[in-house]
């Protein structure tokens, strides 16, 4: 079944077509939601909201882009709104981590690098973090990121570059040890 036919069948209320659309995209939507939320319950909720909204709004999809591009724009919008609502909760978690001194620490080792990297990613400015996760972690292209976030491809590239720079700075002690 090609994409146009699939969309037409979903619009006509065909349950099997709805399921086919869901199966084709759910992994990528859930993975992105999980990577950005870092919480299974929230990721599930955001994924569900994405598909509920997508099915409701498919009537307004004019076919000017690929369905996957449109769906990921819906997903990123739902995820970013959801994260904004959960921000207070995330802030409390970060404060708790800082209070317990997780960011300080023992001599560098690889597991510690992963932990420190995760913290450094969490602390990136929101735009940098989203582009970094989408590109370097989930493998989205700059074109896909631009379409999903409504930004220019060049902006996506610039934000990725700045994100990497900030991560290098945050993990300079690791780099120093391993580069030398």
């Amino acid at each position: 079944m090609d994409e146009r036919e699939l969309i037409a069948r979903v619009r006509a209320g065909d349950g099997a077509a709805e399921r086919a659309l869901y199966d084709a995209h759910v992994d990528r939507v859930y993975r992105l939601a999980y990577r950005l939320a870092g919480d299974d319950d929230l990721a599930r909720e955001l994924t569900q909201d994405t598909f509920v909204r997508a099915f409701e709004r498919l009537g307004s999809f004019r076919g000017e882009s690929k369905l996957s591009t449109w769906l990921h724009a819906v997903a990123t919008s739902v995820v970013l709104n959801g994260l904004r609502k959960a921000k207070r909760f995330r802030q409390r978690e970060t404060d708790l981590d800082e209070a317990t001194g997780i960011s300080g620490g023992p001599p560098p080792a690889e597991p510690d690098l992963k932990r420190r990297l995760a913290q450094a990613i969490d602390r990136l400015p929101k735009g940098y973090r989203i582009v970094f996760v989408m590109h370097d972690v989930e493998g989205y292209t700059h074109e896909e990121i631009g379409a999903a976030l409504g930004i220019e491809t060049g902006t996506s590239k610039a934000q990725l570059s700045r994100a990497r720079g900030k991560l290098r700075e945050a993990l300079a002690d690791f780099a120093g040890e391993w580069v030398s």
Partner: protein
Amino acid sequence: MTGDRFERLLRDAAQDYHRPPETPREEMWRRIMGARARRRQHMLVQRRWLHWGLGIAAVLALGIGIGRWTARRPHGGGAETTAGRVPNEAGTLAYRVAAAQYLSRTEALLTGFRTEARPSAPDAQFAAQARDLLTTTRLMLDSPAARDGRLKALLEDLELVLAQIAQLPAGGDKEDVQLITQGLDERSVLLRLRTAIPAGPGPVRMQGAL
């Protein structure tokens, strides 16, 4: 280790950043279908309430209009005929029908709110219904009902409660919900409302406060 190797190491390490488990496809699908069914149901209920609300408002407005028109007519003393009373009776009947519907629906809403609204997340449906009924409450306060002191006091209490429910935020506020239910209890709003609702089946009820 070179700078490039460090970059590669970073990229590899980043794969472990919030590494997602296997996608819970079936569970999420069930929930999506459930959420969509609830939304469809919610929209149907809203549509039905909107129709009822508009109908009640229209009948009330008609009743009030007829009432005012007949009230302005000069009485001819003993010369008043049956024909002269017809508009007045029609107005009273229209008012009673509309008022009975309004009171029954308000009672259903408040009963539902009291039993179903969870303190942490009152359903947005209650707020929407309260907004619809609030308009009718204001019309009722401008109708012959407001001449009855007991009913006027009830309508004023209902206006306050409906306004509070209508303004509840989507996420809900535990204290607001508690204040509303507390107000309902303290002023015996539901009891007074049930007493005011005319008894008997059908839209035209001739008992109660009307």
